[in-house]
C-alpha cells in the first residue's frame, strides 16, 4: 500500500502511523455535553468503503495527513495536510 504524502510523494505504508478515524469532532475542552464526548470517544462509522482517516508520516516528514482510504480495496483516494484543512468528504 502506497500513500502519497503531499510533501514527500508516494511512500510505502511502513513509513506511516495510523492516527485514527478522521470523522471525529472533538468537543471544546470545557464542554459538559456528555453525549458529544461519548460520540467523540466511542462512535465510529466503520464503513465498508471510503473512510476518512488521520495518518502521520512518522517515518518521513512527520506531517499529519487527512487520508481517504477504501477499507475494502485499500485504495488511497486522497491525501492532504491535516493542518488547517477541513474534513475530506467521503464519497459514501
Amino acid at each position: 500500500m502506497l500513500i502519497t504524502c503531499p510533501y514527500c510523494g508516494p511512500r510505502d505504508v511502513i513509513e506511516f502511523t495510523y492516527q485514527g478515524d478522521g470523522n471525529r469532532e472533538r468537543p471544546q475542552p470545557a464542554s459538559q455535553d456528555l453525549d458529544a464526548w461519548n460520540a467523540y470517544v466511542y462512535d465510529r462509522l466503520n464503513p465498508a468503503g471510503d473512510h476518512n482517516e488521520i495518518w502521520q508520516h512518522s517515518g518521513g516528514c512527520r506531517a499529519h495527513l487527512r487520508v481517504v482510504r477504501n477499507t475494502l480495496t485499500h485504495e488511497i483516494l486522497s491525501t492532504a495536510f491535516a493542518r488547517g484543512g477541513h474534513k475530506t468528504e467521503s464519497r459514501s
Partner: protein
Amino acid sequence: MVERQSPLEPVYHPGSHGNFEHGIDVILSETRPGSILQLAAWPGEEKRLMSGIYKVTGLALPDGAGGGVSNGAKSAFGFAPGKFTVVDEAEGLASAFTGVLTPSIGTLTDLSHGRTAIRIAGPKAEWVLAKFFAIDFALPAFPLGAGRSTNHHDIFAQIQRSSADQFDIYVFRSFARSFWKALCHASEEVGYEVQ
C-alpha cells in the same frame, strides 16, 4: 574547542573492503560537519526563513518540497513542510542565526552533536541506498541538492544528494554505528573503500 568523538570510531576502518578486486564502486566516509541545524518556520513564514538562510549562508533554497542546495562547505535542504536542515563544515553556525531567525519567524535546533553525517559516493551509490530505503534515487526523481526524509527500520534518515553520484545521510548519533555497519555490509558486493 572540545574534540568531538565519532560514534563510528570503533568500526571505522579506512581502506578497501568487500568485493573490490573488480574495482571500488562506492566510497564511504564520515564528513563530520561542525554544524548541523534544523530550522522550522511558523505557518506562513517559510519565505522569511528561506531568505534568512540565504542571508546567513549564501545558499538560495529552491521552492518546492525537499528542495535543496549545496556548495561543498555548506548545505541546506527542506525535509518537511516549512522545515530545513542546514549544515556547515565549520562550527558555530547556530550563533550566526542570532538576530536573523527571530522568534516571529520560527525556531532553530542545534543538532550538531545529535546527528552523524555519512557520505556515500560512487557509481553504485544509488544501488546500495536502494537496498535500505523505499524511495526513488534516480536523478530525475531525486535531483541534485534535494533532500528526503525516510527511514530504515527504526533509523530515521535525512538524505541529501550532494552531487550526481553522491549522497549525504544524516542519522541519529546513537544509531549511527549500527547504520554504518549495515551500510558496510550492503556495500560489500560492489566493493567499497572507507576514506
